């Protein structure tokens, strides 16, 4: 059983008090550019998900608690939660640096932008 911690209300509880919401940081193409949405972009948005072995980023909801959505970084091998962070936030810097595969690609320019500011 996973022990989840809600960063919004601070509640800690086991998995059954929460609800997993799938992969984090999925961007809906039509939100950013409603006119030019390619079939590939829409397909990727709807169906294509990362499946990393190791560090993964997910959405969770404090289902039976405060009802708010938040993000979590979890290791898919050890099932250990590395961090919990707000729904509008990016993961802690060190986790973005540790990310591999598709996540590393995704966080690459985020890290650059953060380094600039």
């Amino acid at each position, binding site marked *: 059983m996973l022990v989840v911690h809600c960063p*919004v*209300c*601070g*509640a800690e*509880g*086991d998995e*059954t*008090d929460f609800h997993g919401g799938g992969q984090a940081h999925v961007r809906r193409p039509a939100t950013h550019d409603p006119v030019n949405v390619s079939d590939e972009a829409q397909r990727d948005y709807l169906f294509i998900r990362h499946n990393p072995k190791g560090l993964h980023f997910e959405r969770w909801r404090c*289902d*039976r*608690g*405060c*009802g*708010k959505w938040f993000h979590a970084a979890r290791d898919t091998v050890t099932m250990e939660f590395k961090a919990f962070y707000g729904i509008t936030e990016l993961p802690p810097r060190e986790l973005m640096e540790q990310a591999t595969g598709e996540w590393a690609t995704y966080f690459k320019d985020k890290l650059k932008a953060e380094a600039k500011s």
Partner: protein
Amino acid sequence: MSELYVESPLAHREAPQGLSIELREITDRGMIDVRGSASDKKFMAAAKKVLGIDLPKASRTSVSWGDVKALWLSIDQWLILCSRAKAVELAATLKTELGGTHSLIVDVSDMRAVLRLEGEGVREVLLKGSSLDLLSDDYTPGTVRRMRYAEIAALLHVVEDTVFDVYVFRSYADYAWDFILATARAPAKVTLFGAQSTPI
């Protein structure tokens, strides 16, 4: 015209017997759902003006003033408890006062059933349907916790050390009542230390 009348969701159930704790339904409780932003000063001030208390900002807490209680449900949601007779009027006053702010007031007195559990072993009884550590120091009087109880959504309010209110949605009232009847049977009492009682 048909007359408006209130019937509690557990009116047809008999008073329980043979339990290790006391269990009854509270039928005269008025409940008002309040939503708004805790960082909106106008909203908080208007709520205080009507209720006489500041809505609690700390997670899972409650405050009371006279017969009015405010329970924290979420960072932007509170449940106001008062007598059922007062609820309609109080909700109307709140609506008028909060008119200019981004907020929501709904009288939800009939939405939930309130179960009052009272007695020494009440925490152990509730533990049978919950994954929370109810024996820890987190659950002192005044604590409010929305939780998963017996697989359904419930709201737990620690009234006193051995007095707990469990709020469940009205349609689950019979189920929750039956669950507590089964888990709180005197022979099924859990003793945390020492010899267990023998089930009959």
